[in-house]
C-alpha cells in the first residue's frame, strides 16, 4: 500500500469536513478498499474512518414503519438485528464469510456498487432511500452502472431507509471462490406491485427486471416467471464462471426461487 494518513472523526460533520480535501477517501469496513489499495489499484493521501461515527451505527424503525440502517452498520449487525425485515437480514447474513460480515458495512457496499454485490439488489428491490450527509436519493436514481453511483465527491451514506414489503426473499447463487453471488435476485411484493432486482448478471450492475415485475404483479407465483423466457444473453456478463446464456437462465431460475421462498 502507498502511504496515507488515517483520521478517525467522531461525528458526521467532522467526517464530511475531513473528506473536503481532494486526496481524502472514506473508509467503511475496509473489506473492499484495503485489498484494492494493497493491490495499488487505489490510493489516497488520507483515509477517513467512519467506524467511530456513533450516529452512523445501528438499526431503528421510523414513523412510516421503514427499517433505517446507519451507513456504518456492519453486515453482521444487520443479520442479527434487522428482524423487522427478515429477507434483508438473511441477505446480510449471507455476504462473504463471518469475518467479512463483522467489518463490512452497508454504506461501503452501496458506495462501491460492485456489479455482483448483494446489498444493491436489496436496496433496489425494496425501493429504499439512500440518505447522505447532503440529501436523500431514491434507489432508482442511486445505482448508475458498474462501480458508479449518484454520490458526489466526498459525499457519504449516513443511513438507508427500507420500506418493508408484504413478502420478500433474496436468492443467491454462490460463486464459491469469491463468495459473491454469481447471480442473485431480490423479489419484494408491496401492496401496489412487485419489484425484482438482479445482481451479478449485468456488466452495468444491478438492474430491475421489468417484465418479471409486471408478470408477478399480476400473478405472484413461480409459474409467472417461467412463462417469460430468459433475458437476452448478450446483455449479461460472460466470463470463465459462466457465459451470458447461463447467467440469463440463472436470472429466471433465481427469480422463480425467490418468489417461491417469499410465498
Amino acid at each position, binding site marked *: 500500500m502507498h502511504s496515507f494518513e488515517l483520521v*478517525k472523526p467522531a461525528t458526521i460533520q467532522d467526517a464530511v469536513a475531513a473528506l473536503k480535501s481532494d486526496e481524502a477517501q472514506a473508509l467503511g469496513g475496509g473489506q473492499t478498499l484495503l*485489498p484494492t489499495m494493497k493491490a495499488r489499484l487505489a490510493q489516497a493521501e488520507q483515509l477517513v*474512518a467512519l467506524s467511530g461515527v456513533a450516529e452512523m451505527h445501528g438499526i431503528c424503525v421510523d414513523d412510516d414503519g421503514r427499517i433505517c440502517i446507519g451507513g456504518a452498520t456492519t453486515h453482521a449487525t444487520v443479520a442479527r438485528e434487522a428482524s423487522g425485515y427478515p429477507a434483508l437480514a438473511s441477505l446480510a447474513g449471507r455476504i462473504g*464469510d463471518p*469475518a467479512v460480515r463483522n*467489518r463490512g458495512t452497508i454504506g461501503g457496499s452501496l458506495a462501491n456498487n460492485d456489479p455482483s454485490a448483494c446489498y444493491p439488489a436489496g436496496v433496489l428491490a425494496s425501493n429504499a432511500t439512500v440518505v447522505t450527509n447532503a440529501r436523500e436519493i431514491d434507489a432508482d436514481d442511486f445505482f448508475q452502472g458498474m462501480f458508479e453511483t449518484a454520490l458526489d465527491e466526498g459525499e457519504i451514506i449516513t443511513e438507508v431507509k427500507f420500506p418493508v414489503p408484504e413478502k420478500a426473499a433474496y436468492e443467491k447463487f454462490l460463486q464459491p471462490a469469491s463468495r459473491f453471488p454469481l447471480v442473485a435476485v431480490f423479489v419484494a411484493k408491496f401492496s401496489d406491485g412487485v419489484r425484482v432486482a438482479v445482481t451479478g448478471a449485468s456488466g452495468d450492475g444491478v438492474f430491475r427486471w421489468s417484465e418479471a415485475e409486471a408478470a408477478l404483479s399480476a400473478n405472484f407465483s413461480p409459474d409467472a416467471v417461467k412463462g417469460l423466457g430468459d433475458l437476452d444473453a448478450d446483455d449479461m456478463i460472460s466470463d470463465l464462471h459462466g457465459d451470458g446464456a447461463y447467467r440469463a437462465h440463472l436470472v429466471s431460475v433465481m427469480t422463480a426461487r425467490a418468489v417461491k421462498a417469499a410465498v
Partner: protein
Amino acid sequence: MTNVTMTVNGKSRTAAAEGRTLLVDWLREGLRMTGTHVGCDTSQCGACVVHVNGVAMKSCSVLAQEVDGAEVTTIEGMANADGSLGTIQQAFQDYHGLQCGFCTPGMVMSAAALLKENPRPTEADVRHYLEGNICRCTGYHNIVKAVMAASGQQVAPVAAE
C-alpha cells in the same frame, strides 16, 4: 509513525504504526508475534483471523491505528496458562486438523468465534462458519471433526475412516 497500544492476549502492548500499517503487520512486525499468518493479499484466506474486542476479523484488512486501544486475542492467546494446548488446539492435534499448519491460526480463531456464538454446532454449522478459512492441505474433514470434538460432541475417531 504513531504509537498504538492494545491489550493483546491480556497484556498491554505498544508499538509504532503508520496510517497504512495493517493490524497483522503490527502484530507480526511490531510485536514479533508471528503466530498470526498472512496467506493472501485479497482478504480471502482467513489465515490472519484474530479477535478484536471479542469479534473475529481478518487482521490483514484492518488498520492498526483504527483499532488503537482494542482488546485483541491471537492464536498465542489460545494456549492454557501453563503453556499446554488449549481445547481447540488440542482437538486439532488429536483429529489431524492440520498438515502444514499455515491456515491453522485462522481456523482456530474462527472456530473459537463459532463456539462462543454456538457452543454445540452441527457439522453443517461448522462448515458454514469456516467458509472464509481456506486450507490447501487437509480437505477440511478433519478440521470439522476437530471443531466438533472441541465442542464436546462425539466424533468418529480418525483411524476409523
